[in-house]
């Protein structure tokens, strides 16, 4: 009977002990433990940078090298970039999108618009930084970085869609309540952008390690925004301010800008630094272009897709040094010469391999930083702004010719304002192909749809079946899912 007694005693004690149930998971950080220290603030800001990465294929981050990537999508809807991979790229190249797309491009629009959530995320991080117990100096610095990142994404969204909805702090404090918020007006959006970027400009340092935000970056982001808004006076001032920083200068050789051994060159204002050791931080822009059988780095692989269409290639002067990294033919490892007659890819266009060889490129992963904005853009923008604001003058010609001289081209002198602006647009095309600036440049000059219709006309003459497009396409359609979700508080861009 003793056994029974012990059993009952054991049971009772275990039952009592078991009433407190708890679980543990060492991969989680509790809400009340973060952020506290200066290092926490840095980690919180680092987490925001994720959405600007290069190596994501599903639209999670905006600088991927596939059709969803910001730069690729922007360039491929213009005359400077195309792909030999069939209909998906053609939908972009011929701007064949409507509001209710059945093609996968609607998925790209969806992924792009979904990033408007980042504005909330960054805002919450800013508020957490400000509420933390870290030293004031650190709080100011990391808050400024978060402000700059918010401005960066704000620019991306504005570029693609125009103003998007921005939740207020009160709405963010109560995520469980469904607020059906519409898009901001141009003025409201402007005040959000201006506030974010001004704070960043005021509080960021002039120099920082590659990848961290600087004063120059914030100024350039604001410059790009002003250019899109058509506020050329403000833009002109920003250009002058950036030049006055004295941080940046043109590289002597165009190819140096992209050279993997010259990553720290001071022409680059904003880049997404790459690291080829992990799949989500590598630069894939080379692999997208590089034909599989083209000898390149020892361990590299190419996918052989993207090209610079021949029509655009032919607008370059033969002596233009910027063509040095554009291949019109190549010889395979087995000695076969490939050109537009026997390569499907080259029949579409030339190979804009401007990033050059990363000798350590492994498979499709290269380590070249992805160039986002650079100093020659500031110079050409200043030239353009001066011409637009006060007519062409020798100062404006000077900025343009700085860029032309580096390309080995002669000066442009004595053009009237109109011709000068036309020259600027052509120059920008030649300077920035593959960098994703072409779309906004054409829109600013009112030529986005016009150029597309030229391509459409030519394709239809050769048996294509594409409809012509209009300036409606200057902004992408807002995905219906977001309009539905907001109970139509979000309005579609006009014309769709």
């Amino acid at each position: 009977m003793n056994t029974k007694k012990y059993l009952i005693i054991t049971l009772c004690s275990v039952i009592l002990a078991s009433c407190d149930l708890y679980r543990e998971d060492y991969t989680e950080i509790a809400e009340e433990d973060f952020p506290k220290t200066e290092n926490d603030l840095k980690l919180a800001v680092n987490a925001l940078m994720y959405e600007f990465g290069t190596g994501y294929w599903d639209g999670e981050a905006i600088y991927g090298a596939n059709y969803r990537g910001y730069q690729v999508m922007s360039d491929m809807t213009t005359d400077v970039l195309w792909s030999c991979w069939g209909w998906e790229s053609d939908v972009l190249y011929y701007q064949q999108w409507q509001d209710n797309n059945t093609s996968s491009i609607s998925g790209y629009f969806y992924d792009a618009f979904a990033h408007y959530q980042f504005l909330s995320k960054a805002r919450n991080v800013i508020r957490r930084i400000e509420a933390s117990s870290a030293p004031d100096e650190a709080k100011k610095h990391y808050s400024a970085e978060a402000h700059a990142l918010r401005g960066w994404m704000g620019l991306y969204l504005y570029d693609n869609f125009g103003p998007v909805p921005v939740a207020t702090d009160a709405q963010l404090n109560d995520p469980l309540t469904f607020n059906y918020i519409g898009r901001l007006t141009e003025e409201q959006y402007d005040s959000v952008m201006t506030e974010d970027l001004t704070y960043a400009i005021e509080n960021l340092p002039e120099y920082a390690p590659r990848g961290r935000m600087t004063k120059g970056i914030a100024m350039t982001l604001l410059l790009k925004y002003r250019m899109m808004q058509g506020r050329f006076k403000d833009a002109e001032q920003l250009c002058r301010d950036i030049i006055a920083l004295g941080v940046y200068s043109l590289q002597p050789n165009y190819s140096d800008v992209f050279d993997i051994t010259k990553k720290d060159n001071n022409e680059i204002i904003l880049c997404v630094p790459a690291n080829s050791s992990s799949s989500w931080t590598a630069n894939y822009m080379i692999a997208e272009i590089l034909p599989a059988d083209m000898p390149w780095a020892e361990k590299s692989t190419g996918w052989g897709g993207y090209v610079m269409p021949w029509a655009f290639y032919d607008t370059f002067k033969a002596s233009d040094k910027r063509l040095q990294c554009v291949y019109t033919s190549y010889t395979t490892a087995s000695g076969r010469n490939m050109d537009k007659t026997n390569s499907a890819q080259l029949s579409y266009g030339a190979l804009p391999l401007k990033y050059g060889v990363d000798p350590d490129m492994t498979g499709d992963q290269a380590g070249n930083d992805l160039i986002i904005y650079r100093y020659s853009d500031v110079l050409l923008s200043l030239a353009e702004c001066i011409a637009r604001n006060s007519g062409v003058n020798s100062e404006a010609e000077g900025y343009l010719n700085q860029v032309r001289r580096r390309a080995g081209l002669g000066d442009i002198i004595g053009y009237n304002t109109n011709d000068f602006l036309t020259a600027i647009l052509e120059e920008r095309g030649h300077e920035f192909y593959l960098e994703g600036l072409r779309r906004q440049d054409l829109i600013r000059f009112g030529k986005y749809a016009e150029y597309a219709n030229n391509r459409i006309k030519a394709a239809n003459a050769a048996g294509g079946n594409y409809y012509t497009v209009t300036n409606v396409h200057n902004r992408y359609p807002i995905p219906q899912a977001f309009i539905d979700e907001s109970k139509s508080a979000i309005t579609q861009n006009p014309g769709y």
Partner: protein
Amino acid sequence: MKDRILIILCALCMLPVSLLAGIKGTIFDENNEPVIGANVVIEGTTTGTITDFDGNFELDAQPGQKLLISYMGYIAQTVAASNGMKVSLVPDTKALEEVVVIGYGASKKSNISGSVETVKADELPKAASASVGEMLRGRTSGMVISSNSAAPGASQSITIRGGLSGQKPLIVIDGIPQLQSSSPSSGTGYSGSDKDNSLINISPDDIESINILKDASAASIYGSDASGGVILITTKRGKEGKVEVSYSGSVAFQTIKDAPEFLDAKGFMTEQNRIFDELGRSAEKRYAPEQIENYVGRGTDWMKLVTRTGLVNEHAISVNGGSDKTKYLISLGLYDHKGIAKNNDMQRITGRINLDQQFGKYVKAGVNTSFTSLKYNDVPLGDSRNQDAALIYSAMTFNPTVPVYNLDGTFADNPDRPNTYPNPVSLLEITDQTKSYDVFLTGYLEVKPYKDLTLRATGGVDMKFAGADQYIPTSTMKGASLGGQASKQTNNNKLGIINATATYAHNWNDQHDLSVMVGWEWKKNMWDGHGVVANNFPTDGALMNNIGTSEAENPNIWSSKGSSQMASFIGRASYTALNRYIVTFNIRVDGSSNFSKMHQWGAFPGVSVAWRMSEEPWLRDQAWLSELKLRGGYGQTGNAGSLTGINTVYGVSRGTYVIDGSLVNGIGLNKLGNPDLKWETLSDANVAVDFGFFKGRLSGTLEFYQRDRSDVILTKSLMSYNEINTIDYNSKELYRSRGVELTLHTVNVDTKLFGWNSDICFSYYRNRTVRRDPDFIPAPYQDYVEDWGNVYGYKTDGLIQAGESYPYLPNSQPGAIHYLDINGYQYEDDGVTIKRDAEGRYMLSGKPDGKLDQADIVKLYNNTPIPFSFNNTFRLWHFDLNIYLYGSLNGWKQNDVLYQSSYCIADLTYGVNALTQVQNRWTYQNQEGVLPGVAEINSGIDPSSSNFFYERSWFLRLDNISLGFNFPTEWFKGYVKSARIYAAVRNVAVFTPYKGMDPETGNGIGAYPSQMSGAIGLSFKF
């Protein structure tokens, strides 16, 4: 312990020898077979003996003395001694009546009122099945077991009653729930098939019986673990009185059953040239006509090079026996499967010791221990394309004109698109090993202080240690680009459990039978793991075993650890009056650490009643009726969903961004907690009738059920602007399953020489969402009450013919699929806003609108299977024959291989091979062609969003034919108790209109081919 067993063994051997001369006699059973090991004792004395192998005994007794003759399962008799006496024993039907394990106890089958199915393991065909899950397929109605792949040891999904809960069934082995865990993945681009992690850990030879608690009135005793149903496995235990050694072994050969037919070299060259013509790129053609004409042979048969004849070897040996005090069972099993893909094998070693010991009059204790070692060698599988293409995919599609090796011995590449597709044979150089060890230790202590009261405490631990190792050598394309890649991953899971029950059972004059149980249980789940993936190795030689030599700048490393707890109170009362009125009440109260303090506890009751009409006096004497029982029950089980927490938490993301060339980490908000979360509830109503006619010649069960899943834990989308825009919550959705199940057992012929029994199982169910969240807006094609089996898509009407064009398909040229524009939207007066109906759904106009969009999507099919099975057992003299068929009366499935081959037909220009069927594609020269031509790829519409490649996939599988021969025991002069040899063929034939790979396992283009197995086996006991 060993000593004790030895002593018992010796004692048993000596007993027959120690007899004294005197009375001789023989004991027979009801079939006139001699009874071995029966007790013969002189009444009132301790003098006695047991019978030998021929049923004979010899006892020093006086004629006329009373002898008490007893044998387990038979009624004891007292007979006067006489020399040469022959005694026939009569079976004790009452004792033999089936006892069914129902969770925290057992019950006589006749007293069961819930829905409980029993399967005897001995009745299952074992040949070439590693897992008892495979054997159970189709054996009970209402439980659907489908293999996710035909690879050795591949995972199975087991759903009981339509799988409404989305949970796997709880598997309870000898009263201890089995740990649910998953094998670690290799963590790299290549992975083998998903592994079976549950039933594969137990050797089918160790199983005595399997009980399945199907409805919640029975399963509620397992509360929140039981929403997927409960499978109770009882292992074999030692039996009193005799040492029994059993052996069973078999060997099986396997051949591929469903390999699709791809183009040979000549066909490939011809079709590639044609595709270039059809694409208008004739200049790029690679083969001159005479080159094709003069090509010798069929080219490289890649499938043949990476596959082989599979081989399965099984051996199981067990020893059991014991005295009235000590009983034991020891078993050891080996299962070795060499898969039909080269380098793909699986090996399992199982060991088990079950021991029961009686201490004095009141106390009994025992241990169950088992050990399982599983070892897999995997090959890369899956549907990936290009560089990551896996073995089967790659073998099906690799260029057949390429030899395996170059002249220098390296693997040949596809010249049509170099450095893109891996050479299939090179993939065999990948090392991919998964090992797992499962240690299952439980002990119990049972005290019977009074006659009717049993106190029982059980404690146990189930530990699984699993590790996956992989190495991709530089001889493969992927390995070359990575400088070799090694991966080592481990996953450890532990379950600690302790429970205690008190059971009071009493029977009053066979009139009232009462059993009451109360209990308590506490469980803790613990997990931890770590892993490394690194590349860039100086040599391939060390594989993944010297991972420190990696030159990778940024190897992927991780580790994790966590635990959760659950405490429960359980109770059951069961009362049977007059052997015919039965009522059972179950309750379990569970508390889980996964919920916040205020919602930690949930109560899950179950009640069922039954009426055994056949025991009523007015029916009892009807000769035609042997059993008639009406049952009904209602119960609830719970489910914590896929819930991991109720807290708002931050998480570290590794390498989110690059600063100055180096990866940095970030910390961001990961999850928005919802402290209001509570248990999901699954409520079950079940009515059934059990029947038996003509002395059991026809018996069966017909059940109807309705199952509701409410408070469903879902992830709700918050407004998309939020930082975290999802949250777990208890939705208002209500899921409902309704179904009917029929099980029939017939004894068609039963003569001394020849017998034929059949079992038929059939089930029909439909899962539906019957209520939605208030803010739910159905898609235009969607019903508010929606059947889960619905398949939606565009309708098609063959192919676009020459001269035809459709404005809503601007990119579809002749030869592309003719998708149908059948509907449009209704607009408000502004012409822009689409009208919505009362449920918020967009309203359709019913007329084509010149656009192919969501409005044109319709319900194409309903895909809910209607499973059935038909099992036949024949016996003739000493032969037995089993013919087993199962299948599904309904099914629709996309023919994935054809879809891939046909839709990507232009990939032929890259040297990607296609099915021979694509020769019948539409071209201007072959306008009769039924498969899309090259134009389809430009249509901008993925054919998988339409019915074009869907085919009917009902099937009937002739799963097993086995013929056995039971040696008459007299041939062995009693030294062998039973011996059987058999030959079996598994997966003999599949009848189905589906033209793709296997209708069950052939998913995706790189599916592991299913196999037909031929086996021979032997089993004996002595």
